[in-house]
């Protein structure tokens, strides 16, 4: 979807929605592409989301290497749901 500069809240939504769309878990690199954010910016947001318990980072063994996987929590899913309602309300009432 094309649009103007995303607000902080929209960025958080886009990150969480990207994780949700991939079945609730995603690799950090994939998340970076899916959410259209730079590595630095994504890390900043992920730190905040970890603090707020909206995502969790799990380490999984893949072949001989350990790789990180980002999981969305119930709190994160709740935020996505609430934001989606807010967006529908905004669209309906022209806000």
């Amino acid at each position: 979807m094309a649009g103007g500069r995303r607000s902080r809240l929209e960025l958080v939504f886009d990150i969480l929605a990207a994780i949700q769309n991939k079945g609730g878990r995603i690799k950090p690199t994939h998340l970076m592409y899916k959410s259209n954010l730079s590595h630095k910016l994504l890390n900043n947001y992920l730190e905040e989301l970890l603090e707020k318990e909206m995502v969790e980072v799990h380490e999984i063994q893949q072949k001989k290497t350990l790789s990180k996987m980002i999981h969305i929590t119930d709190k994160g899913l709740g935020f996505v749901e609430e934001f989606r309602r807010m967006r529908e309300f905004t669209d309906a009432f022209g806000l």
Partner: protein
Amino acid sequence: MFTLFETPTWFAGFDLVLDTIALIITLIISSYSYKLFKLSSNRKFGYFSLAFALMSLAFLFKLATYTVVYFSTSRALAGATVVAVTGLTGLETVNVSLRDLIYRFGFFVQMASTLGALLLLYLVSQKSRDRLKKFYEVSQITLFTYFVILISIVATFKYTVFYLTSFVLLALIVLNYYQNYLHKKTTNSKRVLTAFICLFLAQLFFVFIFAANWFYFIAEILTLASFAIIAYVYMQVSRKQKPRSVEVKT
């Protein structure tokens, strides 16, 4: 029961039920917008919440005013309260003048808060200049032109001035929501547009109550229909949804 000149006898009292429903709906929308304001810290939700809170205040004052005016028991109670507070004697005399006093004060608060709410709705439903520059400017000029004309004629009209002002403000709000519908093309934006068209038409009937008092009934029904649609949109938006894929903004 006292009957107002613009209220059909058979409808007096029933209008209070309709206004109570509208009051509840405006309170729900106001509180939901406030919740969104707290969540997002976006001022537009705050203004929207305030607009609906002002509408609630208007309905509350209309209910209080009309209850006192319609029912003699409430009128006597209000009169006795005023006598007790002010120390005035001659309850009968106070009651007679009190009817007008309460009505005028209630109408003033209802008018001020409704116009405030509509003005806020008009401003908050405006789109950014870069997107709808021409429309924005035309509507601003229309609004200010109207107020200049209003000041000129306000002395010659009574309650109709209020409904005329609401009519003009709602015409502009309807245009904003029409633009919104053209932009979004969603079912809910169409419903909101329909709701404000109903409210807009209601003002037209309110203006012409002097011609036929049953216009009051039509205006009240249209007002209720408007808020019922808004309530339906709210229920559609706020219902629990199944998780689904979403498009990420670029």
